[in-house]
Structure formats: structure tokens, C-alpha cells
């Protein structure tokens, strides 16, 4: 499937492939038709993590380097993946190796310095670093130094304006939780008029590719998540009323299902993290349906889709989307498995 090569100026202007999990039927729709595909009382759950300016170019050990931040840890350190010389124009798998950085190594970034605490398994490119600033000063400098992570199929430089969802809040995501891109205010208000409920989780969506075989095989890495009290109330309420819980994005599925799995099916409010991998045969406890981007079998998110629909149905849906000219990746078209 061809990737979308730029953000849309009208969020909801793409296409929507509706794959019925009950009947196996496939229909071509627009995101603006979502309200009529849902019932009053159905609950849509969004990932409200804002996208970090996670890509920061700098120098270390005398060589150019790019850090891609995964997010802050509770102790104030950050996890990051190091890339060698070059930028997003080069596909990640063709980027040169960064210099091997030992504990104490210094990484000079624009207006900011990071010190390596240690490399983390499974790759010497996965680092725990600490910056030479904190609080408002750190955040201020990070936003000056960094840009959104992007890949070679989008050539013009992206700004945060291009990648934030309409409802983004706390900057936790290394890459945009892009399934939510089509939701503009008009669509959110139309859903509300239909009686559809909305709720949020915050999930630190990670990198989708690093070009490092060991690291890519380990994706998704442990990711931070938070479930607000309002959402922890809304989900059991919807389920008791026989309504459906629909995740907007695979990160929401991981957040909700992992939270439920570790609490015996309850869904307590609060913060945590998850290493949960969801794939074929996974017994979902919370999420009934999924709104997601177009994911091909080679992508890491595809396995999660198999927890919703059989392989044959997903293959048929993908073939149909391909024939109809749907576009893939973060600015591409959408798919509703419901």
C-alpha cells in the first residue's frame, strides 16, 4: 500500500474502511460517517498523548548523532534511541550506526546536553540519558531543540502542528498516536450529537521502527500509560449498559487491555506501564472494536489486529483497500474493525 506522503489539511478528509466483525462485510465510508456506524452510548476511547519533539540532532564522540526520545522516566531520566549520521530522508534501516556511547558519555544538542547513564537491552543504541536541565527550563529547551520523528516517505519537514491530534495534551508519545488524526472538532461534535460517549487514556506510543534488528524485534518496548478516573468510570458503565468500547488506535488497546489484565479485569484509574503484546488469540477483556490506520502484515501493529479479526478477513480487507487506492502510514486512511 502506498504511504500518505503529507499531512491532510482537513483532518477528516480521508477514507474509512469499515470491516464488520459480525458479518465479515467490508464497506467504504468516510470518517464523517462514523456517527451513523455507532449507537448512542457506545464509548470511543482516545489516546490523548501529545507527540514529543522527540527527534534531536546533535553530536557525540565527535560524530553527528540523532536522538529519538522515547519519554521521561519517573526518576527524571529519559530513554532514547541513538541514530548515526543523517536524518529522516534516509530510511532507518540504512542509517549508519551511531558511535558506541558508554556511561558518562556526553551528547551535545542545541541548547541542551545529555549524559548517557547506560545502554539498555537489547541494543547498545537504546540509552538511558539525563539532561542538564529540569522542569520548565528542560521542556522549553527540548521544544526548541527537537522536531517530530518522521520517516523517509514524508520528505518535507514536519512541524508539531502537523502531527498533533486535535485533542492532544500531555507530551508522552515518541510518535503521534496517528489513528486519531481524522477526528476534528466537527466530527467530535457530531459523535456527541449521536449520543456517543468519549473518554481518554494517555499512552506513550513508541517508535514504530529504528532500523536496529534486535531493537525492532523487541518493539513495542515498555510504554508508560495513565487511565483517568473519568475513563475508569465510563468503561464499566458502558459495558454494564451493553454498549461497545471502541479504541481509537492500537495504543489504546494496549493501555486498556494491559490495565485490565493486571487487575483481574477491573480497570483502576492511575498510572502504570505495559509490555503487553497482543496478537492472534488474545482474549480481550475491555475493547470491542478498533479504529486504526491501514496496517500491512509487515508492520508491528498488524499482529494486534489479529486479536480482533481473523487473518483471512484482514487479508481480504487489505486487498480491497489496496485496490481502492487507500493510503497507509500515519497520515493515511482509516479502518474500523467493529
Amino acid at each position, binding site marked *: 500500500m502506498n504511504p500518505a506522503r503529507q499531512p491532510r489539511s482537513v483532518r477528516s478528509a480521508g477514507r474509512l474502511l469499515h470491516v464488520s466483525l459480525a458479518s465479515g462485510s467490508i464497506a467504504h465510508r468516510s470518517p464523517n460517517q462514523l456517527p451513523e456506524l455507532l449507537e448512542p452510548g457506545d464509548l470511543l476511547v*482516545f489516546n490523548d498523548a501529545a507527540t514529543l519533539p522527540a527527534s534531536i540532532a546533535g553530536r557525540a564522540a565527535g560524530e553527528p548523532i540523532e536522538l529519538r526520545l522515547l519519554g521521561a522516566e519517573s526518576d527524571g531520566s529519559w530513554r532514547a534511541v541513538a541514530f548515526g549520521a543523517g536524518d529522516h530522508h534516509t530510511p532507518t534501516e540504512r542509517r549508519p550506526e551511531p558511535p558506541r556511547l558508554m556511561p558518562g558519555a556526553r551528547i551535545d544538542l542545541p541548547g541542551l546536553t545529555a549524559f548517557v547513564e547506560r545502554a539498555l537491552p537489547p541494543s547498545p543504541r537504546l540509552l538511558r540519558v539525563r539532561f542538564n536541565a529540569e522542569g520548565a527550563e528542560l521542556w522549553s529547551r527540548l521544544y526548541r531543540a527537537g522536531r517530530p520523528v518522521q520517516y523517509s516517505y514524508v520528505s518535507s519537514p514536519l512541524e*508539531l502542528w502537523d502531527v498533533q491530534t486535535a485533542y492532544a495534551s*500531555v507530551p508522552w508519545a515518541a510518535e503521534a498516536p496517528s489513528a486519531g488524526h481524522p477526528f476534528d472538532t466537527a466530527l467530535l461534535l457530531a459523535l456527541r450529537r449521536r449520543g456517543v460517549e468519549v473518554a481518554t487514556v494517555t499512552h506513550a506510543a513508541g517508535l514504530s521502527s529504528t532500523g536496529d534488528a534486535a531493537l525492532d524485534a523487541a518493539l513495542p518496548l515498555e510504554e508508560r500509560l495513565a487511565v483517568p478516573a473519568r475513563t475508569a468510570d465510563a468503561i464499566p458503565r458502558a459495558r454494564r449498559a451493553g454498549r461497545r468500547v471502541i479504541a481509537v488506535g492500537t495504543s489504546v488497546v494496549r493501555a486498556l487491555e494491559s490495565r485490565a489484565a493486571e487487575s483481574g479485569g477491573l480497570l483502576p484509574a492511575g498510572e502504570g506501564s505495559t509490555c503487553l503484546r497482543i496478537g492472534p488469540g488474545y482474549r480481550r477483556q475491555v475493547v470491542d472494536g478498533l479504529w486504526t490506520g491501514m496496517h500491512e502484515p509487515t508492520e508491528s501493529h498488524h499482529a494486534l489486529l489479529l486479536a480482533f479479526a481473523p487473518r483471512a478477513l484482514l487479508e481480504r480487507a487489505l486487498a480491497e483497500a489496496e485496490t481502492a487506492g487507500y493510503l497507509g502510514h500515519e497520515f493515511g486512511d482509516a479502518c474500523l474493525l467493529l
Partner: protein
Amino acid sequence: MTLFDDKPAVLLTGASRGLGRALFEELARAGARVVGVARHAEAVAQVAAELRARGLEAHGLGADIGDKRDIHRIAGAAAALVGPIEVLVHNASTLGPTPLPLLSDTACEDFERTLQVNLLGPFRLSKALAGHMLVSGSGLIVSISSDAATSAYPGWGAYGVSKAALDHLGRIWAAELAGTGVRFLAIDPGEMDTDMHRAALPDADTATLAAPADVAARIVRFLAHSQATPSGTRLEAAKLEAA
């Protein structure tokens, strides 16, 4: 139940001087967790440090509301520091050049810059923050207005136009998001003894002017009990009764 009972996350622009500095203090004293923004990074960091030294939660962020590139920096850094923003106060504004020129004598670039700071900045920052308020089912966006928004004072062209448009921006947003729990208010603080007032009217008798601290206290007392005030309302600080 007041607006401040749950220690809301508040983002305030123009927080280093005048009414903004006073609002920074009053909001933090009321219990809010406040991120104050100003162009002068050191000045706003200093105000925040003083408030923190008194045990209040305050963060100072240096950024230019008139620069589109700074908007997600402000929105993102603020949410990183205090969590999802529940109350946004658009206080930052520029008069434009002083002495205040007549409209026909106002340089196009000066007019544009005034709109960038006083109108486009608030539009962009509201746009960056209102979406999360919408999916959360609550939020408050307050614009600090001016009587120059409603009265046509010669010499106050760029500023008055920007403030009139800012008022209307909030009214239209209020109409679009009616019933969602996201509310918009505009407050005219009245004439105050501030640097801005001295720049605009250097010969004014400062004895007749309100102290920014008094106006800020009045505004924050009003906001605490403002839940029943209809979204889209424009109020004058001098007429606000503390509930």
C-alpha cells in the same frame, strides 16, 4: 465547590508583569497549579520561583505567544509540567507602538504584530488546548479584554481592533462548543496602574487607576464561582461581585 477546589492546571500568558503577574500570584494562591508564560524568560522564571518559595505551585516558561512556532511548545511544556490544562487565561497583549499612532499612521507591520500577539496567539493556543477540554467534558478559556474593544478611542486602533476580535473569537467558540462543558469568558479589567497604561497614557493621574493586585484578586474570586456564568459572556472587572 469552587473552580479551584481540585487544584486545576492553569496556563496564563503575559505572566511576568502588570495584571498578568498579579493573576499568576492570585491563581496560585487560590490553589491552582499554574504555568505562567512570558516573552522574558528570566523575568517569568523569577516570578515563578518567588511563588514556589511561598509553597505555591508555579512554573515560568519563556515563549512568544505571537510566534506560531512557540504554540505547541507552550501547550506541550505546560501539560508536561502540570498535566492537562483545564483553565487557559489569555492575558498577554501588546499595545503596538507608543506613542499610540492614529490608524492611518500605523505601520502595516505594527498592526500585524499586534494582531499576532493579541488575536492570532490566543486563537492558536485555544485551538491547541480546546480539543482536549472537549474530550474531557470541561474546560475554561478566559480572555482579558479591554474597554478599547467596545469604545472607538482614537489612537487605540490596532489594540482596540485586536481586543474586539478577541472578544468575538471567544463568543463564536462559545457558540460552537455550547453544551460541551468547555466555556469561554471575556473580562475587561478596567484601567490599571501598569507599565502598559503608562506607555499608552503617560500623563494619566495614576491615583485614579486600580492596582493590578486588586483587579487580579477580584477576577480570581469571580472565576472561583463562575461555573453558572453562561459561556460567551463578557464581564467588566469593576462590576464583578465576589460570590
